[in-house]
């Protein structure tokens, strides 16, 4: 027993074995992935459910989407976990410090996608950026892009809804982060930070260069899979269950009359509804998929998704430690307006 564990431990240190293992894993992944739909259909026929019924259609959606989403998530999170070892918040800050607005906002929004970031780090990150001379607006561009335009959202949109929607989400998510950050910077609201934030001066930090080998990077990817997939799987199951219900039971006429492109009020309603809702991108996308399948307008649905992810009440409560209420209100108003704009634009373009 011990020798097996030891040789496994040895194997984990070998770069060749990692490469070979990943190649085998990815091949198996694709083979399995292509069998998911036939398998879900077969599974439903094995159950005592009348074929063609609402229930059958819901159950099939659930059986198909659950393994699909989990498999995709694993692949995407692993790849991004490896990519992220090339970035760190400290390095991102060094890149952004002293950058002018405009270019700085664009750089910050893009770095927001690849820089490792967890919401419990939001406050130290905010303070660390501002105190090191990253302009407030640039900091906001980063803080808006980091949760909204992430690999989970993009990867799942790509696989479940299609590459066009994923690309537009990427482009417009980045635009909202850049423009909102720029607007907040133009408003010169530094005085609305909590007083202690303005006073803190960041100490110079000189972390020794970590020499990461490929094995270290792969292990970081695997750690990310364990952590993220372990943390979000219940969101996903809940999201897929909600999606499955919509898929099987909600009549298309009802949804398209409420969330269709013809009802102008549906976009603001979607944004408002999204604020108190808090979900991970992984949980919301199966719902999005089902809504789109029932004829909901793309702009309305994307506005809802962006609002759920980017404007979340828990995050605002955390940020209250560094921002005054006035500044939080401005943040919500600016980002909310951006999301509204995207919603209307899409409904106009794609209807």
């Amino acid at each position, binding site marked *: 027993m011990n020798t097996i564990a030891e040789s496994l431990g040895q194997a984990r240190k070998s770069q060749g074995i990692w490469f070979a293992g990943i190649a085998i894993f990815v091949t198996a992944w694709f083979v399995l992935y292509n069998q998911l739909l036939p398998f879900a259909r077969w599974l439903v026929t094995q159950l005592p459910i009348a074929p063609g019924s609402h229930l059958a259609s819901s159950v099939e959606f659930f059986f198909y989407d659950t393994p699909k989403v989990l498999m995709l998530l694993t692949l995407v999170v692993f790849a991004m976990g490896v990519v992220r070892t090339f970035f760190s918040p400290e390095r991102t800050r060094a890149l952004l410090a002293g950058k002018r607005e405009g270019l700085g906002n664009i750089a910050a929004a893009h770095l927001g996608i690849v820089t490792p970031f*967890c919401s419990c780090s939001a406050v130290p990150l905010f303070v*660390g950026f501002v105190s090191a001379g990253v302009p407030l607006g640039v900091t906001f561009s980063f803080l808006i892009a980091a949760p909204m335009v992430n690999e989970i959202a993009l990867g799942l949109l790509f696989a479940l809804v299609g590459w066009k929607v994923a690309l537009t989400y990427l482009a417009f998510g980045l635009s909202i982060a850049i423009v909102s950050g720029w607007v907040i910077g133009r408003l010169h609201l530094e005085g609305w930070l909590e007083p202690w934030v303005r006073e803190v001066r960041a100490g110079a930090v000189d*972390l020794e260069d970590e020499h990461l080998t490929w094995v270290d990077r792969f292990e970081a990817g695997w750690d990310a899979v364990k952590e993220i997939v372990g943390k979000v799987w219940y969101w996903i199951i809940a999201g897929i269950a909600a999606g499955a219900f919509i898929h099987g039971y909600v009549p298309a006429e009802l949804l398209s009359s409420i969330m269709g492109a013809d009802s102008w009020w549906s976009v603001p309603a979607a944004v408002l509804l999204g604020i108190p809702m808090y979900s991970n991108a992984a949980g919301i996308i199966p719902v999005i998929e089902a809504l789109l399948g029932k004829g909901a307008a793309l702009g309305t649905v994307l506005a809802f998704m962006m609002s759920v992810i980017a404007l979340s009440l828990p995050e605002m409560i955390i940020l209250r430690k560094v921002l005054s209420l006035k500044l939080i209100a401005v943040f919500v108003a600016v980002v909310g307006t951006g999301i509204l704009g995207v919603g209307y634009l899409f409904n106009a373009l794609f209807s």
Partner: protein
Amino acid sequence: MKNIKVLGPGCKRCQTTEDMVKAAAAALGIEASIEKITDYAEMAKYGIVSTPGIVIDGKVVHAGGLPKEDDLTRWLQA
């Protein structure tokens, strides 16, 4: 006697980091005073952007994510 500070607002990973530091110091037989810093202003003064961070005798050795066991041993012995 080493002075070790673990910087973090109290999320689960910060707690794990503190436990790892304690365990590593005990395993090496190093006498250490371990202090938890949860104040954001204090953290910012050390210049870290991501938590948890580890400061040993005034020097920041780690920021962001769980430290690796090997690194921890190396920093403590330095």
